[in-house]
């Protein structure tokens, strides 16, 4: 990690309250160095764990699950009954998804997930959450004005007769949304369908 680029990670309120990123980088390197010296960590962990969540574990896994549920009614039933077990059938499991629940959008019910207290998120099916999911704006507003937030900030205007169900992930169960299968996809296969399923669709801030 010598001569590393500091990169650029936008803080939640960058303009008015700039926090120097170099400070965060230095504190991180200091902690890393001390842990390595004390035999509490090894250097190769950094790239390996990053790569795991950059390449192997991400929303493409959730998309696979959803696509299978769209084409396989028996799997869909198992998924809605016990998402953890059903995902394991596809080899999908892990940390921050030890107990998962999948909730199904319908023409009359729209689900959306949030973690008002921190940043809980179903890693095995969605990977690591984007900053906006973890930042105060989303977390504060989703439980008190979900319709307004979805409309203004995500362009998703839900009719009043659609019930909105917000899942605040306050304990150790992790939720994800099965979006409605789009019209006109009747002839698509599982793999093709999976390409339609977005991370935002499985959070519930977008339709697919």
């Amino acid at each position, binding site marked *: 990690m010598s001569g590393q680029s500091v990169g650029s990670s936008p*803080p939640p309120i960058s303009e008015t309250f700039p926090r120097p990123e170099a400070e965060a980088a230095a504190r991180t390197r200091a902690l890393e160095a001390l842990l390595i010296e004390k035999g509490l960590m090894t250097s190769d962990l950094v790239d390996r764990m990053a790569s795991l969540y950059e390449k192997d574990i991400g929303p493409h896994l959730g998309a696979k699950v959803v696509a299978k549920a769209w084409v396989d009614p028996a799997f869909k039933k198992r998924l809605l009954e016990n998402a953890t077990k059903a995902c394991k059938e596809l080899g999908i499991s892990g940390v921050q998804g030890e107990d998962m629940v999948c909730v199904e959008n319908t023409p009359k019910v729209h689900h959306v997930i949030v973690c008002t207290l921190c940043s809980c998120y179903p890693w095995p099916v969605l990977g690591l959450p984007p900053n906006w999911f973890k930042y105060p704006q989303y977390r504060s507003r989703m439980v008190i004005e979900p319709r307004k937030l979805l409309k203004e900030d995500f362009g998703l205007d839900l009719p009043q007769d659609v019930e909105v169900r917000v899942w605040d992930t306050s304990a150790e169960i992790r939720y994800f949304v099965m979006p409605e299968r789009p019209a006109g996809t009747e002839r698509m296969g599982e793999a093709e369908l999976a390409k339609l399923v977005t991370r935002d669709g499985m959070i519930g801030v977008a339709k697919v």
Partner: protein
Amino acid sequence: MNDAHDLGGIHGLGRVDVEAKEPVFHSDWEKAVFAILWATFGTGRYNLDEFRHGIERMHPVDYLSSRYYEHWLHTMGNNMVEKGFLTKDEWDARTRYYLSNPDAPVPRKEDRPGVEGFVKMAYEGAPTRREVSAKPQFRVGDRVVARNINPTGHTRLARYIRGKRGVIHAVHDAYVLPDTNAHGKGENPQYCYNVAFDARELWGDTAEPNEKVYFDAWESYLEKA
């Protein structure tokens, strides 16, 4: 604790800012922070609730203005200090060193089998679910009210839920109780329940129509309504 991390229903924080094509990690230091989680939390140096409570103890100004992985960095470092693995002075001094010498290398040590052990853990999970002999006190459909508790320590009972009436939607398994586990007072596993709250119960006339919030609550957070 009642503080800035408890964000449900707070106004005035602005619009959601979606970063176009956001990478999983923005920089090397974010990757390093992520790895440190596995090396420290993943080896049981501190537990999940100590991790979360460490973030909550940030000053609200710090909490609300810092990058996400700065939260992790803060709690991981402080937990390791509190558990005696390093001192605050060591950490501060080394930080000053890297600020003055941004190109100075971090020492390297390799342990491929050890690293693969963490990968295995990533796929296998680290559950806080526990077997308990007691039966769940509530059943699906029961009307409950969330207790009004205001501990100075850790809790997962959000302020906007306290004192509000809801209906048990699902009975989960038992899980380690954050309120004690964050403070060295034991795991005390309890059943968790998913409770459905009508938005009007939570927000009064201000609520949007036709909405429910589903909230997971440990048994001791709830009373029969």
